[in-house]
């Protein structure tokens, strides 16, 4: 239900940087669909556990698209849509690396 994860990579810079920690929770997604701008953690078959920003969500199909904020981000523009069942959770707390 609740997970602590450490961010690696730069696709969500400048807001999220490698070394930051995030606390993710699945419960909010049971009651509310992910919306544009939400930062979510999910499982992608080729890349494993990823953290990205929701770009759009289609409640009918349960599919959503994610993007990064960095120009070289690998996201739905490469691997396509994801399904709500792939979601691990929504970021509810972001602990920044002070360095």
């Amino acid at each position, binding site marked *: 239900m609740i997970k602590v994860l450490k961010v690696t990579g730069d696709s969500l810079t400048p807001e999220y940087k490698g070394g930051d920690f995030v606390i*993710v929770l699945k419960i909010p997604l049971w009651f509310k669909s992910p919306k544009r701008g939400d930062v979510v953690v999910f499982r992608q078959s080729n890349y494993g556990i990823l953290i990205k920003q929701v770009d759009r969500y289609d409640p009918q199909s349960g599919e959503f698209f994610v993007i990064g904020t960095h120009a070289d981000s690998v996201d739905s523009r490469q691997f396509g849509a994801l399904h709500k069942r792939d979601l691990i959770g929504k970021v509810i707390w972001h602990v920044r690396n002070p360095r």
Partner: protein
Amino acid sequence: MIFKIFESLDEKFGVERAKAHCDVPCGIYDPIVAQISALTVVRMIDLIHDLAGKGAEHDTAYHNTMSRYVTVKEEHAEKAKAEIRIIWGDYIKAQHLESYPQVNSVVHKIMQLGSKSRQTTDREAAVEFVETINEFAEIFWATKGITTKRANAPYAPALEVVYPNL
């Protein structure tokens, strides 16, 4: 302070990673560069044998031309190897290896034939280099659900090349 607590938790228990994955190539992979490079290797070997067979005087012009052929052969054999290494290392994933378990041995064979093509002027090895890269291309396109066809390259050495049916 809070960050330090999380950091020590990570050090002690190993917190799971969430990748904010970034990659400059952005999914642009295509074995055609390796295929063309391998064809160039065969072409250079043909030109080397042609020049040597002409019985021309070994003057500066001869050495200049011969060294240019050898240099291009070297460069393209290495280029083909590098292109295959990138696709194998960055694109090929565990599930591709499950579906196409021969990938690793095909790549290893390409590396060896590429080296042999650099070290020697063995045309047979270079043709096998082209063909093994063709096998890799067939697997690569199959992982994307794209069928392939074989056709002779429209230029010397006119060997068979695997092309995707796009």
